[in-house]
């Protein structure tokens, strides 16, 4: 939970609510510095969510932090009815988002439905920062966004994507590369390094790529995304999440309503994964660099066949 102490220094409304998740969130330093800003309710996520609601009703800004799935599944109704419905200023930070971040723990601690679940609940902003420093910035940004915000975090050992202090600007897509307009690659989180590699391979084959980071999954930058879709005419989405409900679904919805183009999705293909090492898992479950390259080529072929 880097960034939380920066916030707490300036704003005495900032609180941390844990469900015996202090170590998992690596927030012990925060608690040493601000012991009276820490509410520990024990392994009781529903209680943590509803207690956070109570703090927020009184004008405080609680960060409810634990594993992504225990927030979004165990406490789903508490988030929906007691935080999102009254539009309270509760921030939720979920670690182990995705199969790579859950890695050796197995399915009980790999969470690949979180974004799909929260996306169907009104009022919630969903942020998916790419690496640790981006997560720090997303945490700081979340405090400034009114209403509930969910920050999807990885394992803390995720590959570094951006240089330190690269800006994290919520709500807008981040166009990382524009080498041409044969294909748009949309992605976020732990899959970004793979998209960068795939982009290089495609460019080497003479295929022009527009590489876009979509770290704000809700509300989606519909205008920005539609513009890229119009420019490229074909797209691939990539996320460490079930292909149902996450970024891929969101972009397909946007495309279908605004500018339909062939789109291929990269993600977990609606199945339960195994334990394993992060890279090994992503490769095995069809999220490899090669899978992205093939998906791009397929989308381009579909685009070209539609033209004829």
């Amino acid at each position, binding site marked *: 939970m880097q960034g939380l102490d920066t916030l707490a220094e300036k704003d005495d409304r900032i609180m941390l609510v844990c469900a015996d998740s202090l170590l998992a969130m690596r927030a012990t330093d925060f608690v040493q510095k601000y012991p009276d800003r820490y*509410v520990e*309710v024990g392994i009781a996520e529903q*209680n943590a*969510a*509803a207690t956070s*609601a109570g703090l927020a*009703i009184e004008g405080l800004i609680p960060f409810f932090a634990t594993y992504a799935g225990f927030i979004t599944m165990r406490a789903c109704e508490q988030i929906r009815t*007691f935080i999102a419905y009254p*539009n309270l200023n509760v921030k939720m930070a979920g670690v182990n988002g995705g199969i790579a971040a859950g890695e050796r723990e197995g399915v009980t601690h790999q969470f690949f439905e979180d974004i799909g679940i929260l996306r169907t609940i009104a009022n919630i902003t969903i942020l998916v920062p790419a690496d640790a420093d981006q997560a720090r910035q997303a945490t700081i940004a979340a405090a400034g966004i009114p209403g509930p915000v969910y920050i999807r975090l990885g394992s803390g050992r995720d590959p570094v994507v951006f240089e330190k202090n690269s800006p994290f600007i919520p709500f807008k897509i981040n166009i990382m590369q524009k080498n041409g307009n044969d294909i748009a690659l949309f992605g976020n989180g732990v899959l970004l390094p793979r998209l960068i590699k795939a982009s290089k391979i495609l460019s080497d084959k003479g295929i022009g790529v527009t590489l876009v980071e979509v770290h704000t999954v809700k509300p989606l930058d519909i205008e920005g995304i539609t513009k890229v879709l119009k420019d490229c005419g074909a797209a691939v989405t990539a996320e460490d999440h079930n292909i149902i409900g996450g970024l891929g679904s969101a972009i397909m919805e946007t495309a279908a309503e605004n500018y339909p183009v062939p789109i291929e999705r990269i993600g977990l293909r609606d199945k339960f994964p195994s334990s394993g090492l992060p890279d090994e898992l992503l490769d095995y479950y069809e999220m490899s660099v090669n899978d992205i390259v093939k998906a791009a080529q397929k989308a381009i072929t579909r685009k070209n066949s539609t033209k004829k």
Partner: protein
Amino acid sequence: MTERITRLNTMATQLRRDVVNCIYHAGDGHPGPCMSIIDILTALYFDVMRLDSNDPKWNKRDRFILSKGHACPALYAALARKGYINPAELKTLRALGSRLQGHPVPKDTPGVEATSGSLGHGLSQGCGMAIAARRRGDDCLVFVLTGDGELNEGIIWEAAMTIPKYKLTNLIAIIDNNGIQSGGKVDVISNLYPLREKWEGFGWYVVDLDGHNMKEITLALEKAAKRGRASREEREGMEIVSNQAPPLPDQPIIFIASTIKGKGIPYMEGNNAWHKRVPTDEEHQIAMEILGGLDLE
């Protein structure tokens, strides 16, 4: 009976009339669960709680959470007679766009402090609110009224652990122990009893209360409120009821109020058909004759 108790009992009768009218006009709602809490609500809103209806967001006000949100017509009636909303607005209960939603939400209804209706969540929200009040250094209190049926919910017992942990003596909990939940008797539906020992085991100070005896309710709640605003030193040895050793200074208090579902309207009392039912014209008329008081104008 003192004049004050008579006045409070008259108000309770008025709120019962308002609830019947409210549900009759709306054509929907839960009258039985409202009636069992009316006397407690009256004591809180018209005697015990520190409130200013002209300033619903006043920082130092006491907070009330109706955890059993389906009894909200009773809460809305109390808010109306306390001056937060116009009594005529009670007729809009459950209507499209009404501030009086089917279950409460603290968005634009003045006086509603927390969302409720999905059962079990009052104590946890109250826990957060009481921690926040402590942080501010305000001596305001958080009252949480739960049903007995909703004690089936696991989150209740999660909060039952957290509130004593944080020594939240500024939170006062009350169980509306009317003995009947939606599907039948609470001791048949699940293994609820013994209640006292359960709460004591979690570190609470438990007080039994006759939930329809205004004198007893006000006396006990006033003492609990005084204790809730007191310093730790002052709380030492502070008695709540004469037949029981005083609570330890850091113990939160929970009242187990014996109540009757449907109380005050003979054809509703103890009859669970009135958990959720709308009075017919004739039943409405009978209730009006029994209750007296003002209509919703």
